[in-house]
C-alpha cells in the first residue's frame, strides 16, 4: 500500500467497483476502501436487473444468476393479476457473488482493495479534497489522493463532508425490508409486483424468484408512510397472509433514495457515484445498473483528468451522466409522483382494463398508457420514456 494514490474510492458496491475499474484501466493508481468485512455482503437488495444492464459490464455467468425473468405480473389491491411479457430478459442476481466478481474485475485492472476500512473524514486543504481519513483495525489512518470518489451508498456522508448537500428528504427515501424465503410456490420466470394501501402505499411490494421455491419478498414505503406504519409491519402482514409457513433464510433492512440525481455530483477533488449521487431510477428503485453506469462515467473521467494533469476536467462527468441517464431519471421521477397518488380503485381499474387487452398485445408501454389515461400531462412524460433513447 502507498501513502498517496491518484484516486481513492470510498465504498465497494457496484458503483464504487466500476469507478475503480474504469479508472485503473487507464493506468492510474486506485485504492478502494470498504467498511464491511466482505465486499458484496450483507446484501440489501431485491437483486433484479435487466440483461442489458449487466452485459455492458460483465459477461453473464450462471454463478451469479439465480433466475431468468421474462414476465412482469402486477397484482392489484383486489387480487387481480395482470401479466406481461417483458421486451428483454431480466435476471435475479446472487449479489454477494456478483458484487465480488465486479470487485475482482477492478482488482484485475489494477485497483487495490482494503476491507474493514471505515472512512470517517476527509483531508481538505485550500477548499479542495486531498484524501480521506479512516479507521483500520483500531488505528486511525490517512491516505492522500488527487481525486476522491464517494461511492458510500445511501448514507452518502462523504459528499456531505465535502460540502455537497447529499442528505435525502425523508419523503423521497423508500424505506425497505426484505426476507429471502424458501418453501414458496411461484413461477421462476416472473417478477411479481403488488400495489395498494394495505401492502405498500406510495411504493410497491415485490416477490422476485431466486430459483425453485426461493424468493426475495420485500417492500419499500416512503418515509412519509413510515411515520405512521413501518415497512416491517407491512412485511409481517404480507408474510402471514401469503407465506405463513415459509422459512426465512435472510432478513434485511435498507433504504433507496428515489429522487432525481443531485444537482451537484462533483466538487473540488471529489466525485459522487451510485446511491450517494442519487443515481437510482426513481420510478423502479433499481440502482445496480444505473450505479454501475455512474461509476463507469466517473472512473473514465477521473482517469482522464489525472492523465491530462487537469483536475477541473472531473466536472465533465456531470454532463456525461445527465446526457446518459440523469435527464431520463427526471422524467421517471415525474411518473413516480403521479403513481404515488393512485388510490386502490385506480390500481384495480388499471388491472381490469389491462386484462381486456389481448395477451400478445400487452406491453409495459401500454400498461403505463392505461394507468395514466386520465393524466394527459403524465402521458407526455411516458411517451418520452419510450420514444426518446
Amino acid at each position, binding site marked *: 500500500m502507498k501513502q498517496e494514490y491518484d484516486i481513492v474510492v470510498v465504498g465497494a458496491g457496484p458503483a464504487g467497483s466500476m469507478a475503480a475499474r474504469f479508472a485503473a484501466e487507464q493506468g492510474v493508481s486506485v485504492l478502494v476502501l470498504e*467498511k464491511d468485512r466482505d465486499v458484496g455482503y450483507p446484501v440489501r437488495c431485491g437483486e433484479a436487473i435487466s440483461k442489458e444492464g449487466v452485459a455492458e459490464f460483465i459477461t453473464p455467468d450462471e454463478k451469479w444468476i439465480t433466475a431468468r425473468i421474462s414476465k412482469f405480473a402486477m397484482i392489484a389491491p383486489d387480487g387481480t393479476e395482470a401479466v406481461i411479457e417483458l421486451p428483454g430478459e431480466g435476471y435475479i442476481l446472487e449479489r454477494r457473488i456478483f458484487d465480488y466478481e465486479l470487485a475482482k474485475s477492478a482488482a484485475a485492472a489494477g485497483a487495490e482493495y482494503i476491507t474493514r476500512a*471505515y472512512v470517517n473524514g476527509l483531508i481538505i486543504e485550500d477548499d479542495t479534497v486531498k484524501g480521506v481519513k479512516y479507521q483500520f483495525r483500531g488505528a486511525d489512518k490517512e491516505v492522500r489522493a488527487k481525486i476522491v470518489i464517494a461511492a458510500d451508498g445511501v448514507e452518502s456522508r462523504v459528499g456531505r463532508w465535502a460540502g455537497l448537500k447529499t*442528505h435525502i428528504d425523508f419523503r423521497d427515501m423508500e424505506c425497505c425490508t426484505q426476507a429471502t424465503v424458501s418453501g414458496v410456490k411461484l413461477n421462476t420466470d416472473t417478477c411479481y409486483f403488488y400495489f395498494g394501501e394495505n401492502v405498500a402505499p406510495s411504493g410497491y411490494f415485490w416477490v422476485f424468484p431466486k430459483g425453485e421455491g426461493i424468493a426475495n419478498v420485500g417492500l419499500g414505503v416512503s418515509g412519509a408512510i413510515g411515520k405512521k406504519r413501518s415497512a416491517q409491519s407491512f412485511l409481517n402482514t404480507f408474510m402471514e397472509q401469503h407465506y405463513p409457513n415459509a422459512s426465512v433464510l435472510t432478513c434485511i433492512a435498507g433504504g433507496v433514495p428515489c429522487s432525481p440525481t443531485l444537482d451537484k455530483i462533483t466538487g473540488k477533488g471529489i466525485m459522487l457515484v451510485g446511491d450517494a449521487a442519487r443515481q437510482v431510477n426513481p420510478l423502479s428503485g433499481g440502482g445496480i445498473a444505473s450505479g454501475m453506469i455512474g461509476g463507469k462515467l466517473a472512473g473514465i473521467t477521473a482517469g482522464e483528468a489525472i492523465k491530462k494533469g487537469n483536475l477541473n476536467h472531473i466536472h465533465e462527468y456531470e454532463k456525461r451522466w445527465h446526457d446518459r441517464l440523469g435527464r431520463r431519471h427526471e422524467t421517471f421521477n415525474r411518473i413516480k409522483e403521479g403513481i404515488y397518488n393512485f388510490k386502490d380503485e385506480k390500481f384495480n381499474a388499471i388491472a381490469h382494463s389491462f386484462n381486456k387487452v389481448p395477451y400478445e398485445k400487452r406491453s409495459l408501454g401500454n400498461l403505463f398508457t392505461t394507468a395514466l389515461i386520465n393524466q394527459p400531462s403524465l402521458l407526455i412524460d411516458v411517451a418520452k420514456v419510450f420514444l426518446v433513447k
Partner: protein
Amino acid sequence: MSEIQYRQAKNGKLLIEILPDKCDFCGCCVGVCPEDAIELKEAEIYIIDPRCTNCAKCIWSCPIEVIKLNKNGVPVK
C-alpha cells in the same frame, strides 16, 4: 445515589434513542439525517449528540422500528 446525566442535543436534552441490539446497520436513517448526526460503522451505531436536533426524521425512516423517541431524555451510559 448520583444524579442521572442526560445526553445533550443541539437544543436541550437528546430525545432520540437507537436500540443497537435491534439495528440492522442499513444506513437508511443516516441518509435522511439533515445534521449528519449518526455514526454508523460495520456493526456499531450511535448519535453524535451535540449535532442532533431531535427532528425525528430518522425515526420515521427506520424500516424496522429501531429508533425511539424517549420523552424523558436519553441518559448517558
